[in-house]
């Protein structure tokens, strides 16, 4: 059975894979949107943050002892975030706060140095590492640019990417690494990816759903739901929204705007690592990873620069457009041209994107 001249199952396959890879795109887009929402900076370095985050995850996931100094630095970052970046409920006493922070600190240190559960160690270590990375980038490169023209911040994030590339090269080199996190152990004792879900005899062929992509998609959806709830119901989330709305006003009513910006960068760092890990688990972690973020920029604009829901929809649409484009026109059109054609169309037809706020700069 053909759909517009292509075998139906192939089209369906394209649809499914498109949506699922779109989930990873959406996560990447979310990281970019969060920074843009909080500080009005479009982070061109996001792809490189992904690369660094993914490699951090890989490092922690290896069955090797961690140098205590690394654990110390990372739990130090946690300590810093918990004691300055977070607003605790007013009902908490000072003692309660100190106790909470100490317990969290000790627990992270323990996990990093002692646990046998590599996945847990990798998650904790990467989250802390990339949060620290986000904080450092914000503090060292973005904050000094307050009140500089847009052009300067664009340039800055582009260049931060260069530096991160240098750091990853220096530390990890450019060997490709496989990251089998969604895997069981097979008869030989090797990690083996979960078998794909096969649906036979649909529209004239077999349609396959890749399990790791499905899991990645699920995690992406969960992360999105988490963020929507976070922005809606937590104090920190609310103050981020307020800051995004009007930084001066937020400052005037006593919100710690700088802390909010820093937290946004930290969150974006964690999201970058998450996206990189999910992507890496389905192929490999390679030095070319930042190129993936480039293809997600159209998704961000399509959804709207400041819209979290938009990032999700944008990611899915770009994922779909790529795969369907490949099915119908071949991969040179699908993957290399379509995202950017979508970008041009969005800019001409509806620059604010599908869900973006209308207050964009217009001529």
């Amino acid at each position, binding site marked *: 059975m053909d759909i517009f001249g292509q075998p139906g199952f192939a089209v369906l396959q394209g649809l499914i894979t498109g949506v699922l890879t779109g989930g990873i795109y959406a996560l990447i887009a979310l990281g970019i949107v969060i920074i843009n929402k909080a500080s009005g900076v479009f982070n061109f370095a996001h792809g490189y943050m992904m690369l660094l985050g993914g490699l951090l995850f890989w490092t922690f996931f290896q069955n090797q002892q961690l140098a205590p100094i690394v654990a110390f630095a990372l739990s130090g970052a946690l300590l810093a975030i918990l004691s300055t970046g977070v607003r605790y409920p007013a009902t908490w006493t000072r003692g309660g706060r100190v106790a909470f922070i100490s317990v969290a600190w000790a627990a992270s240190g323990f996990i990093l140095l002692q646990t046998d559960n590599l996945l847990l160690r990798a998650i904790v270590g990467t989250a802390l590492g990339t949060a620290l990375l986000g904080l450092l980038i914000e503090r060292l490169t973005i904050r000094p640019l307050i009140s500089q023209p847009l052009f300067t911040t664009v340039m800055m994030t582009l260049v931060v990417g260069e530096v991160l590339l240098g750091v990853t090269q220096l530390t990890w080199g450019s060997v490709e690494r496989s990251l089998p996190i969604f895997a069981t152990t097979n008869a030989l004792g090797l990690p083996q990816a979960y078998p794909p879900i096969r649906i036979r005899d649909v529209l004239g062929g077999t349609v396959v759903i890749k399990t790791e992509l499905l899991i990645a998609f699920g995690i992406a959806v969960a992360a999105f739901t988490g963020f929507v709830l976070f922005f809606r119901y937590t104090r920190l989330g609310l103050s981020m929204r307020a800051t995004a709305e009007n930084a001066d006003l937020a400052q005037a009513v006593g919100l710690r705007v700088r802390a909010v910006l820093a937290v946004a960068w930290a969150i974006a760092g964690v999201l970058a690592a998450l996206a990189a890990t999910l992507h890496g688990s389905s192929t490999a972690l390679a030095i070319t990873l930042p190129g993936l973020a480039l293809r997600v*920029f159209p998704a961000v604009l399509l959804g709207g620069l400041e819209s979290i829901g938009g990032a999700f929809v944008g990611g899915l649409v770009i994922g779909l457009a790529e795969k369907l484009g490949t099915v119908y026109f071949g991969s040179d059109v699908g993957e290399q041209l379509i995202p950017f054609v979508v970008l041009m169309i969005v*800019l001409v037809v509806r620059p604010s994107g599908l869900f973006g706020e209308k207050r964009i700069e217009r001529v």
Partner: protein
Amino acid sequence: MSANIRPSGVFDTTYTQEMRINRTRFDQILSAGFLGVILLLPLLSRSGPFGIDLVQPGFIGTVERIAILMIAVQGLNLLVGYTGQITLGQAAFMAVGAYSTAILMRGGVSFWVALPLASLFSGVVGLIFGLPSLRVKGFYLAMATLAAQFIIPWLLRNPLAPLTNGSSPLPVPRADLFGQEISGLSLYYVLIIACLLAMIVARNLIRTRTGRAFVSIRDNDVAAELLGINVFAYKLRAFFVCAVFAGLAGGLLAIEARSISPDRFDLRTSIELLAMLIIGGAGFSQAPIFGVSVLAILRETLIPGITPTLQEWLPRLLPFVDSVNINAAIAPLIFGVVIIAFLIIEPRGLAYRWEIFKISWKLRPFSY
């Protein structure tokens, strides 16, 4: 900035005199001296006719590339620095110029005809990608040019492959002048003179009607409109001029490299051109001179110079570093750190510092 500070003892008696680029003896000597050194450089190297070994022959190549990049960066300066529009697609417009030049020359057209035609064509392509500036500006416009940076190489790779060899490089025939092949020394002078002319043209545009319209748009586009300036038309004009410069640079690159491929004109090249502009000082006519020189010399002379030392010492300082990786890591690291330092310490760039220096020099000893 400097226009209102005149060195004492210099009085302009005619408007013509006042409009000169080099208005003082000091400026004139400096410019002439600078130009003289540049023109003499290849004669002082081992490969020159006199066999004097004062200048590293490798440095001549660096100067050639500086000349080419300066043209591209000056175009960018007109669009970004003077008109205030961001573009991330300058390398793609260079690609259009380079490929058009090469294709025309392969078709038997003389280089001297092909180059201007290619530049103009590149300008037209620039105009097309400037069209979104009717509706969007600032960051959104930057994104449109980012799309150009991907769509143009795609066109070169795929539908235009019969003309361009697709992803593979396209050989470029040698350019000639009166039957004489342009290579070595003559290539050097062709590039330097082209660069010089481009700088003068840019300077002329800046100090006349178009330049004032560009600056009006950058500083306050609403007021510009009310002064009778068709803002959209002038933005397009800026895109056109910018891409013409890029096309010129691309065409020269084609005859210098004699082989071009789409990879040569990637996003990172565009970013580097922008970085050169910022370091030089966007919105100052000397920006390309400073920016391109600093980054090109950093990349081609300084970084290779320190790499061996780092290869020896870094693994000892940082135990996790493998010396094999240093070669690859060092260029992006140093490049990135230098540009970040510039963005934080002097976002207005070297040309701005230079102006300040010139003023305090002219006003010495009372520079307050």
